[in-house]
């Protein structure tokens, strides 16, 4: 037998701990189509009953001004669950019962679960379960998701109700003055909606647009009738229906509360009160906030990054595996399929490398959410952010995105989900990618190392703090222009009591979010990697160039042949295949060793004892061959590198880079930088990799990238400053764009988040570079002036008073 259960409750009532307790880890998460609210289902069995439990978004009521409520209501109306479970915070009973009454009116079997029974007990709140059960005429169960109590009672009750199918006698609140109107509307509803008609009538009178739209499909003139009843009621009783209904429900909740609850520690300070005295204290709140942020940063970004040292070998193993099954390299001829395979694996690895960081980050966010610090963070900072069109709740996304140096926009943008104010949410989504992501850091280090070795720390300070000022300016500008018409929400936010998070709950959420990242990001990144590969590969080398490299290959092969001619193994390496085999054997072995494999020796010895003996060279002949082999390998790598840089230069992307030169030259960028930026769009890491491969001179093997850049590029520090300014504003990478699209739910916005920062970055870099050139300013001074101007603009914008309040009314 099957049953479908909806799990409803107010936010912060501990719904998810109950959900996890009942459903185990086998869950299915999907997004409701078209919206960004998660739909979580759990499937499990109890005795012979197959249960599907759907976790509805937390809602304070069933009126219709928020997305969550619409989703919850739509589910109950359209999917018609067999049973509704209402989770109620036992320590906050009065307000929670407000929703319970609305759920009871729906007319489906209802089980009330008094959750957080342990918290209530600690706070001296004694609840008479039988009394409530009698008054509400439905089963009431005491439970604690945190302490895992009440599970069996709940399952048993679900089982009993599903089997007996006993219909509850209709639950009704007597709405006195409103009853005549309810009756009139109810009589008009003739079609069977598989739901209580009285409820539909009440919702329609309450002005619930969703219900009214549903009804008006079948009933003519329903809108006029409703309007008539509304005006009639207001004229006679001088009351507004919404507040009348709310007051009635609160009165009923008050009755239940006063009859069934005894408070023994009523006026004592709760633990939450005491903690808030410190955490929200005027003088301590900011240092504590700072400490929390630094801790998150340290644990997730710094330690997470160290953790990648341990996970990287696994990714390297994937790469090695891929290269082992792909066609082997033939001296200086790399089959395109091999090139392609390695490119794809590298692209994916670059992103998968961040998984440990994300996992820690998501786990920490889940903990902060569960503890109840998030809304407090918003409470502390709202005043500052509001001035720039953001919201107190924007703090966390910005920090995650890398408000200091090193974050990632993907989790940052994803964490904007909870912001109630739509305009501020969009502004936050837009500004998070402007933060300094972790992958930009190597790029900065490269440039600073090459051009600002003496001012490195102050430059790093500029880089790490300017992003937040830039974000504030951009947010202010877009919220007062393109986002002007977006809905804002009033800042009415619950500060939940502090709670200990459960290990399982935190783990489930962290895994869930990491998995979403893997799924959504990797598919897109894969697609883009393919496109980029094509753009970097074609049209490739022309005949003359190819012939030139073939000749070079011949030269190094001849040299190798000559070097080993006197050894005993000379005749073993007479043909090209054998040499290629040896060369690949040698480089595979080195790759394995460098990846830290401890079994490499054994493995390679087994594979080919003869080749292994040459690689490990013991005898004189072997040593001679080994030396020649090293030379050959070096020569081969040089040819490959030159081929690559010519191929990049010839490629479509290279051509685009060149064609942008006429514009980008005003910012001081040559085509090489353009190509690096274009390729960095797939993943930021590629910027450094591309620049590195372009500037590798091949002359001195051990030259560091910084030196190569300084000597071979012909840039001045002013060039570098312009490049840094460009990089600071540079548009989001593909992965970020995917989540921007997901969270903003609009392609237009995604495109805008790509081109606006890009245009701005180009403009700023151009201004700085041109003025710098004209007035002959050094790169460092140019950066300092730019920094000062940005900070100044941010402060001035902050001083402009906000005008917007987009709701009416006020004290007369």
């Amino acid at each position: 037998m099957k049953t479908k259960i909806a799990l409803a409750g107010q936010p912060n009532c501990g719904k998810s701990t109950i959900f996890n307790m009942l459903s185990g880890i086998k869950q299915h998460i999907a997004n409701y189509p078209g919206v960004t609210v998660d739909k979580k289902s759990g499937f499990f069995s109890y005795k012979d009953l197959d249960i599907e439990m759907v976790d509805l978004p937390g809602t304070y009521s069933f009126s219709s001004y928020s997305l969550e409520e619409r989703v919850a209501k739509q589910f109950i109306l359209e999917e018609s669950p067999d049973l509704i479970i209402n989770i109620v915070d036992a320590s906050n009973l009065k307000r929670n019962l407000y929703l319970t009454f609305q759920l009871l009116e729906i007319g489906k079997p209802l089980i009330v679960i008094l959750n957080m029974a342990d918290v209530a007990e600690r706070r001296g709140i004694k609840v008479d379960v039988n009394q409530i059960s009698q008054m509400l005429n439905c089963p009431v169960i005491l439970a604690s998701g945190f302490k895992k109590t009440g599970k069996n009672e709940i399952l048993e009750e679900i089982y009993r109700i599903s089997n007996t199918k006993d219909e509850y006698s209709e639950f009704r609140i007597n709405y006195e003055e409103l009853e005549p109107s309810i009756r009139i509307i109810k009589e008009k509803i003739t079609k069977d909606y598989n739901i209580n008609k009285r409820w539909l009538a009440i919702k329609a009178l309450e002005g619930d647009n969703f219900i009214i739209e549903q009804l008006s499909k079948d009933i003519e003139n329903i809108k006029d009738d409703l309007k008539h009843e509304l005006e009639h009621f207001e004229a006679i009783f001088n009351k507004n229906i919404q507040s009348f209904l709310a007051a009635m429900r609160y009165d009923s909740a008050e009755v239940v509360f006063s009859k069934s609850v005894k408070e023994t520690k009523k006026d004592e300070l709760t633990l939450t009160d005491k903690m808030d005295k410190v955490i929200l204290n005027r003088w301590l709140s900011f240092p504590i906030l700072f400490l929390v942020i630094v801790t998150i940063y340290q644990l997730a970004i710094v330690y997470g990054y160290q953790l990648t040292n341990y996970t990287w070998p696994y990714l390297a193993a994937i790469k090695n595996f891929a290269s082992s099954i792909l066609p082997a390299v033939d001296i200086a001829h790399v089959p395109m399929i091999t090139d392609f395979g390695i490119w794809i694996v590298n692209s994916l690895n670059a992103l998968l490398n961040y998984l440990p960081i994300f996992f820690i980050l998501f786990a920490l966010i889940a903990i902060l959410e569960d503890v109840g610090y998030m809304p407090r963070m918003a409470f502390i900072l709202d005043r500052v952010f509001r001035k720039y069109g953001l919201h107190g709740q924007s703090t966390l996304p910005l920090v995650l995105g890398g408000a200091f140096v090193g974050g990632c926009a993907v989790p940052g943008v994803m964490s904007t989900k909870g912001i109630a104010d739509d305009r501020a949410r969009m502004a936050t989504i837009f500004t998070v990618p402007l933060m300094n992501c972790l992958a930009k850091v190597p790029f900065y280090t490269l440039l600073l190392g090459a051009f600002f070795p003496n001012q490195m720390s102050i430059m790093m300070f500029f880089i790490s703090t300017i992003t937040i000022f830039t974000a504030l300016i951009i947010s202010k500008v877009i919220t007062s222009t393109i986002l002007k018409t977006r809905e804002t929400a009033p800042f009415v936010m619950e500060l939940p009591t502090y709670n200990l998070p459960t290990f399982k709950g935190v783990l489930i959420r962290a895994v869930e979010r990491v998995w979403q990242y893997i799924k959504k990001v990797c598919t897109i990144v894969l697609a883009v990697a393919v496109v980029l590969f094509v753009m970097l590969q074609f049209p490739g080398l022309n005949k003359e160039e190819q012939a030139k490299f073939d000749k070079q290959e011949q030269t190094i092969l001849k040299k190798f042949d000559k070097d080993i001619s006197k050894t005993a193994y000379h005749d073993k390496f007479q043909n090209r295949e054998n040499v290629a085999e040896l060369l690949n054997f040698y480089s595979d072995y080195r790759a394995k060793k460098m990846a830290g494999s401890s079994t490499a020796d054994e493995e390679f010895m087994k594979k080919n004892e003869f080749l292994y003996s040459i690689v490990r060279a013991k005898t004189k002949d072997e040593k001679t061959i080994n030396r020649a082999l090293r030379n050959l390998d070096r020569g081969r790598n040089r040819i490959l590198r030159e081929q690559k840089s010519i191929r990049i230069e010839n490629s479509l992307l290279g051509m685009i880079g060149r064609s942008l030169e006429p514009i980008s030259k005003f910012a001081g960028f040559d085509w090489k930088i353009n190509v690096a930026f274009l390729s960095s769009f797939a993943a930021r890491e590629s910027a450094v990799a591309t620049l590195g491969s372009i500037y590798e001179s091949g002359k001195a093997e051990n030259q560091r990238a910084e030196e190569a850049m300084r000597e071979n590029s012909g840039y001045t520090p002013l060039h570098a400053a312009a490049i840094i300014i460009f990089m600071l504003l540079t548009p989001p990478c593909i992965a970020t764009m995917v989540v921007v699209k997901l969270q903003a739910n609009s392609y237009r916005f995604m495109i805008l988040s790509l081109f606006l920062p890009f245009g701005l970055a180009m403009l700023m870099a151009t201004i700085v570079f041109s003025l710098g050139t004209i007035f002959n300013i050094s790169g460092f001074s140019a950066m300092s002036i730019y920094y000062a101007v940005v900070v100044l603009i941010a402060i001035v914008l902050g001083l402009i008073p906000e005008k917007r309040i987009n709701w009416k009314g006020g004290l007369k």
Partner: protein
Amino acid sequence: MGLNSCKSGKRYIIKNINAKGKLFYKLLDMGFIDGAMVEVVREAPLYDPMELKIHNYLITLRKSEATLIEVEEA
């Protein structure tokens, strides 16, 4: 008087709510109904928003919204 000008640590009774639309619904859902008792717990470190206790739970309101709630001292 408006709730925005109330003092921390004191209790007040809600007389009237002058909000409209979304904000009005939201306030009703959170228990801001005529006759309900609110306690002003504290102001944020930067003096806005403010923290209130109503029906025995904590909630924050910006002062621009608190202006719309008419109260009198309990």
